[in-house]
């Protein structure tokens, strides 16, 4: 059984890593054995507890984008009844729907088979390195595109605040949203970051950095929320764990909110490279030190 201390540790880790493009699930699987905490990731309570932490994170995202979500939900209902999209928020609502469906369906059918992978820290370490490669590849493509767009012969090495040459979320096509949604399903693998893979896909599709993060966070919210709500009944059989999990979910939510605010500010001028190097280093450490 998971101890209260361990659950709270996982909560802080989850809140810190869920929205950064570094895979919270990968961290939950790799970091405890790396720092000498012994527990079985195959413990029946592990996935439900993690799901509660996701619920806390989803609440943080809902709070962060509360005004957006109010307009998105109203926009979805208006557009669905009318059969036509007329405003930016109605378009964003449709983008989120078509982006969420592939991940939801793929997740439903693959979640149980993939749960067995959660007990394998070395495999998660390998996927963390792959995650770092995905982030670096996305930034490489972006730099190449920036150089192509720049009129000056000198290479552009840092993107400007606001990135005027690149699009906002509302400018995405439905096809691209589906493409990003399919990529999101890759996050079912421990070590592959949901926010990382969707930000990478968003950058490749031509979004500004902070818009790629915004789309990633908006896209993650319904999936994380739905997955959390669907797993809540499985906590019922173990009341102490459930009680601690609720406190842990609150902790994860607070930390996630602060992390998201930081990341959105950072991505106005920063890139994903530091997260890529960090993932590669953590993955390598996991492969070397976990046996």
């Amino acid at each position, binding site marked *: 059984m998971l101890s209260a201390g361990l659950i709270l540790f996982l909560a802080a880790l989850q809140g810190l890593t869920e929205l950064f493009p570094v895979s919270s699930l990968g961290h939950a699987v790799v970091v405890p054995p790396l720092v000498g905490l012994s527990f079985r990731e195959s413990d029946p309570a592990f996935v439900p507890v993690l799901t509660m932490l996701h619920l806390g994170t989803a609440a943080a995202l809902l709070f962060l984008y509360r005004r957006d979500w109010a307009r998105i939900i109203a926009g979805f209902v208006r557009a669905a*009844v009318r059969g036509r999209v007329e405003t930016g928020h109605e378009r964003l609502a449709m983008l989120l729907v078509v982006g969420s*469906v592939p991940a939801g369906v793929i997740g439903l059918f693959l979640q149980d088979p993939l749960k067995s992978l959660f007990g394998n820290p070395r495999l998660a370490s390998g996927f963390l390195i792959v995650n770092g490669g995905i982030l670096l590849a996305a930034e490489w493509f972006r730099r190449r595109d920036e150089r192509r767009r720049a009129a000056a012969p000198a290479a552009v090495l840092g993107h400007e605040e606001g990135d005027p040459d690149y699009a906002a979320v509302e400018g995405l096509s439905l096809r691209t949203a589906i493409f990003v949604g399919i990529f999101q399903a890759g996050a079912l693998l421990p070590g592959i970051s949901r926010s990382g893979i969707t930000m990478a896909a968003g950058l490749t599709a031509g979004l500004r950095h902070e818009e790629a993060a915004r789309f990633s966070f908006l896209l993650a919210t319904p999936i994380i929320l739905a997955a959390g709500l*669907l797993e809540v009944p499985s906590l019922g059989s173990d009341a102490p764990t459930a009680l601690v999990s609720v406190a842990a979910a609150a902790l994860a939510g607070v930390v996630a909110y602060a992390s998201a605010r930081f990341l959105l500010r950072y991505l106005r001028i920063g890139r994903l490279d530091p997260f890529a190097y960090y993932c590669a280093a953590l993955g390598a450490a996991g492969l070397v030190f976990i046996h």
Partner: protein
Amino acid sequence: MRGSAPLAIGLVVLAVVFAAVAVFYYTVKTNFLASGHPALHWKHAIVFTVLAVLCLVAANFARPKAARA
């Protein structure tokens, strides 16, 4: 986008199929497209219900509409 009656009809048919699959998962103990022992897979049922609703929404988008003044 111009509407397409055949596409709209196809989406309505798909919605009916998804709704039927949802009812199947709500009412029949099965392990069809699900792991484990035969059981009522309400998560599958919810997902297929959502897909059915979304197909109806998509059909509403796809149907031909009268031109606006």
